[in-house]
């Protein structure tokens, strides 16, 4: 625990410790994650930044328990509110995905089932687990009653309905027809939450009838429906137009407040990080190389890679040449020894190829993995 007038220590929703993941491919073993260390505090938006191929998506999939068949978690822990997700059975993992972790992917065009309507793709979540969702379904029914009457005196029939809904025990079963109706109401409310125009119509539509932005909102609605504690947003705006991007990101920020979730926002766009995130983690070739609060990170980047990233952002006012980081992303089948960044690092010295630098806290809330700063 560190002191400081500006820091409020919040409890961690997610802690990833020493996560190593390998992929078995016919070309060789890809050492995708090399000891990832990550913490997400309750209620924050953590940005996860890095170039394509650095392992951001793999981290997200590992957290959600959705790694493909040829992936192997070699070592590490993923603690969701203290529980190690890597030790859960498949069924338990599925239940965490149902109720605690939600992930939204990049390209809404391919991530929606083309032959099932949008509404059905949301209601199937709500009707899949009676225990988990029954209270919310009943709540939706009550709310609908309220909306209908809007302060006017209740007719006896509606009163009876209200009493019946309120008296439903958590353990009792609702009829199938009732469940369907309430699920539809609840789904419509989520569609409204993501600001989709004319939710009743969208409910019946199929994915190919919607635009990219609308589809992404629908997918976000599917994520919200599970009231997750942790939301993983993997490059959710990369496939969309710039204007739509801004809308979606703004929506995400609002929603986070409303449903009280913590978010990992994965992106390669530093501007998005600056705009939305509370803290940011920089990732390179399977390692977290720097973590800090956003303002601190931009004002005072420590890791040479972070510095390179920030310098590479073109500024319209400056007349200087475009700067880039020399070299290219390493081959993860035969990664560089020691610090994986050392072949491209302008400050590398003779210890760098020998030692894999650990992530150390250099100043309150600011951690770096670089031998220049100890380790």
């Amino acid at each position, binding site marked *: 625990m560190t002191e400081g007038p500006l820091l409020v220590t919040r409890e961690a929703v997610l802690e990833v410790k020493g996560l190593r993941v390998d992929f078995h491919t016919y070309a060789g073993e890809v050492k995708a994650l090399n000891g990832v260390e990550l913490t997400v505090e309750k209620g924050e938006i953590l940005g996860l930044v890095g170039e394509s191929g650095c392992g951001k998506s793999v981290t997200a999939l590992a957290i*959600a328990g*959705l790694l493909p068949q040829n992936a192997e978690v070699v070592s590490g822990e993923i603690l969701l509110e203290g529980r190690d997700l890597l030790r859960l059975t498949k069924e338990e993992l*599925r*239940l*965490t*995905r*149902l*109720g605690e972790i*939600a*992930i939204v*992917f990049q*390209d809404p065009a*391919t*991530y*929606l*089932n*083309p*032959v*099932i*309507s949008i509404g059905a793709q949301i209601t*199937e*979540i709500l009707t*899949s*687990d009676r225990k988990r969702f029954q209270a919310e379904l009943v709540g939706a029914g009550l709310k609908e009653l309220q909306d209908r009457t809007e302060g006017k005196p209740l007719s006896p029939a509606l009163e009876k309905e209200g009493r019946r809904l309120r008296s439903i025990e958590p353990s009792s079963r609702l009829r199938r027809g009732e469940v369907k109706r309430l699920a539809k109401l609840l789904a419509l409310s989520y569609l409204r939450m993501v600001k989709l125009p004319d939710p009743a119509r969208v409910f019946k539509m*199929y994915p*190919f009838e919607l635009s990219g932005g609308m589809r992404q909102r629908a*997918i976000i609605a*599917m994520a919200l429906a*599970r009231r997750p504690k942790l939301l993983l947003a993997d490059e959710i705006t990369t496939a969309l137009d710039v204007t739509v991007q801004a809308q979606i990101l703004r929506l995400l920020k609002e929603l986070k407040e409303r449903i009280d979730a913590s978010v990992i926002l994965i992106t390669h766009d530093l501007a998005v990080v600056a705009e939305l995130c509370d803290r940011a983690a920089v990732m390179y070739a399977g390692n977290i190389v720097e973590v800090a609060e956003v303002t601190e990170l931009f004002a005072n980047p420590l890791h040479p890679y972070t510095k390179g990233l920030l310098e590479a952002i073109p500024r319209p006012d400056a007349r200087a040449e475009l700067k880039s980081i020399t070299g290219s992303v390493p081959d993860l089948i035969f990664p560089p020894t020691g610090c994986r960044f050392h072949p491209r690092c302008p400050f590398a010295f003779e210890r760098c190829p020998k030692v894999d630098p650990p992530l150390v806290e250099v100043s309150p809330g600011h951690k770096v993995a670089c031998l220049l700063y100890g380790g």
Partner: protein
Amino acid sequence: MVFVLVGVSLIVFYLGRGLLPPESALAPYITPRMDDATKLQLARSLGVATNSCPSWSALAAHQVECLVPVWGQYLSWIRNVLAGNWGYSLLPGVAGTQTTWDVFWLRFPYTAELAVAGTILTALVAIPLGIISATRNNKLPDHVSRFISLGGYSVPAFWFGLLLQLLFVLYLRVGGNALLPSNGVLDTSCALCLASPGQVTAYTGTPILDALLSLNPVYFWDSLVALFLPTLTLAITSIGALTRILRSSMMEVLRQDYILLARSKGLKERVVIYRHALKNAVLPSITITGLLFALLLGGVVIVEVVFSWPGVGAASVVASTVLDVNFLELYVLVTAFIIVVTNLLVDIVYAKLDPRIRY
């Protein structure tokens, strides 16, 4: 659709009348005692000889003034056909009547029973096999299923049928008795169907349905038993083909991004496979179904020959030896009609399942 049928009829007719000498068209009608004048009369009425033909021998010698051009023959044939007159057949029919129509429809129910049973068996076996194969990819169930499907696809149906008969009649014996009935002669045929034990009224002509409708359980069971081996033989090829296609299409679908999203929603695996994956995977298989049905209708011929099944397929083989063109024409056209209608139905079903298709 009409175009296709007309086209088929054209081809079949041209083959039957155009490539064969005109006398062969008269074969079903000629009795040994007919004199030449009657024969010529017959030829004229059938549209095979012109009115200006002087004599039968002139026709037999193919003299020019006797020959009606194929187009003319076709037109008169079409006129007859549309009126329901398909001429006479050289095959034996019911109680001495020999119209092609009667001969055909007497036998058709047996073939229909076989074809329908084959289709049902194919679906029942191929769908689960394909799904299991795709979901347990590269494990034992997958290997077994691939073996079955590849074997089924490569095995010659006639050999398979004969082998089955050998096996069941000779080698698989329960308590000293053969598993399936035979009289020491290879006769797992539908002799059971034709010798009707108990009360069976022929409502439809198909043994199984008639047994059901007549409420005769013994006969029903016998017909079912007799149906077993032929259906298996008929279905084996299409089981092989359909399993392969379903497997590859299912594997393709399971790789898709939306399956990942479905799993990420925390849905049960069973739901992911049956609601999300299967619905997408059957679409390409449905288009194949039309082709497979055509395969089935062709394979019926072999199965009927091997199992002595009294259907139109076996009859067509006999018809071809005696050059009974009328029968063959009717057979081909009925089959083409069925296939065209099936393809149409398949298209409709496909459009219903895939919301992206709108007509």
